[in-house]
């Protein structure tokens, strides 16, 4: 079980706990990259998904775009963009956003599509505006599924944001990439453990958001 030994050695080394290469600093950077990428992806995926889901048009086009976006290799895209544009935050954000948009888009679309039509018809019959129907009837009911799409996108971003280190940025990927080139497996395992823990924390955050945001009427106990 030398992996566990690596984990133990990595976290008990006090040198890993402060300075610009310390765990808190790297963790903060990683969270920043991930949050930014998720925000950008949600800003693209949510409105489009809600709109197409509400009107029920463009489902096939959406599926095609999602497939095409999924097919683009994140790592290859990153290297290509860096070769073309040079180093920076933007080259890292582009592949991460492309990675995260399809799950958000497709799940949001499906979530709004599969809302029980009777309350929607009732709302329409009472003279509600389409926009109010979307935000006050369909959105609350579709929220659990929408959150699950955001959640899986967030997990993928947290895991993939490690590639930022490959193009000289920070984040938890630093430990993995540096460890690879220094043949320091303790560092690699430590970095991987931190990323996995961060992903689990992300899951927990989404669970909490779901508890708070989903209306008790939708959440069947």
């Amino acid at each position, binding site marked *: 079980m*030398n*992996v566990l030994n690596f984990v133990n050695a990595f976290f008990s080394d006090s040198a890993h706990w402060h300075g610009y290469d310390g765990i808190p600093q790297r963790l903060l950077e990683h969270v920043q990259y991930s949050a930014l990428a998720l925000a950008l992806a949600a800003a693209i995926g949510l409105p489009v998904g809600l709109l197409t889901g509400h009107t*029920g048009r463009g*489902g*096939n086009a959406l*599926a095609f775009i999602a*497939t*095409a976006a*999924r*097919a*683009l*290799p*994140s*790592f*290859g*895209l990153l*290297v*290509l963009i860096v*070769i*073309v544009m040079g180093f920076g935050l933007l080259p890292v954000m582009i592949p991460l956003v492309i990675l995260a948009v399809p799950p958000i888009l497709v799940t949001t679309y499906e979530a709004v*599509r*599969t809302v*029980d*039509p*009777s309350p929607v018809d009732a709302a329409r019959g009472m003279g509600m505006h389409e926009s109010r129907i979307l935000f006050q009837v369909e959105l609350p009911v579709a929220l*659990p*599924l929408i959150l*699950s799409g955001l959640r899986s996108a967030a*997990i993928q971003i*947290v*895991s*993939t944001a*490690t*590639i930022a280190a*490959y193009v000289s940025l920070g984040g938890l*990927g630093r430990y*993995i*990439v540096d*460890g*690879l080139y220094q043949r320091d*497996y303790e560092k*690699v*395992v430590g*970095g*991987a453990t931190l*990323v*996995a823990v*961060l*992903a*689990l924390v992300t*899951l927990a955050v989404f669970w909490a958001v779901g508890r708070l945001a989903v209306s008790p009427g939708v959440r*069947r*106990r």
Partner: protein
Amino acid sequence: MNGFFDIPSDLQHSYLGLIGLHLREALLPVLAGLLLALPLAQLCVRFRWLYAPVLGATTIFYAVPSLAFFVVLIDYTGQTELTVMIPLAVYSLVVLVPAIVDGVRSVPQETLAAATAMGFGPVRRYLQVQLPIAVPAIIAGLRVATVSSISLVSVGTLIGNQGALGNLLADAQKYDRPELAVNSVITTAVLAIVCDALLVLLRVVLTPWMPNGTRRRPKPRVRRRLPAPQDVTR
């Protein structure tokens, strides 16, 4: 003369050779994942309490970045194709187990009862009734697993040029030939889209009783039975 398809000799493969290598490295793990996922999913269907822990364990593995996974495995399997394939098989498992469980669970109770009444044993019932009905859900899982597998093989270039088409990325930087990186990204994307399309075709062939073409049903006009809570918490 630096051509688009001028593969540097250090990769020891032609363009088509790289494609073949890439497909092998990407598809074998998905196949292995499927073979592992089928019995595992069956166990999860049979013993309900098993599903949550299995999902939890696979989610943790899914959260481990592929590069870290590769590097940790170098200790055990060296800088080989196998080192790239093992994590990909694990990732496939994560996608496939829930897909198969949902698919098998979606078989209506009366269908199962009818099969039992016709004298089908549990094994025959599973192979001839439950699996075929679960095919659309399984193929949906396979599509996601295959596409992400094809995309992730490229990362293998970082552990001693084990990334098939991804090795072009390293060479693009080494020899300052950006067109190699363009070639790598485009070829990988096309491979993924072609495999995805083939899987859709496979679903159409395997499920002749399903309406072809559009998978998207029109918005249901009748009240759908709400899914059970455990299906929503996914």
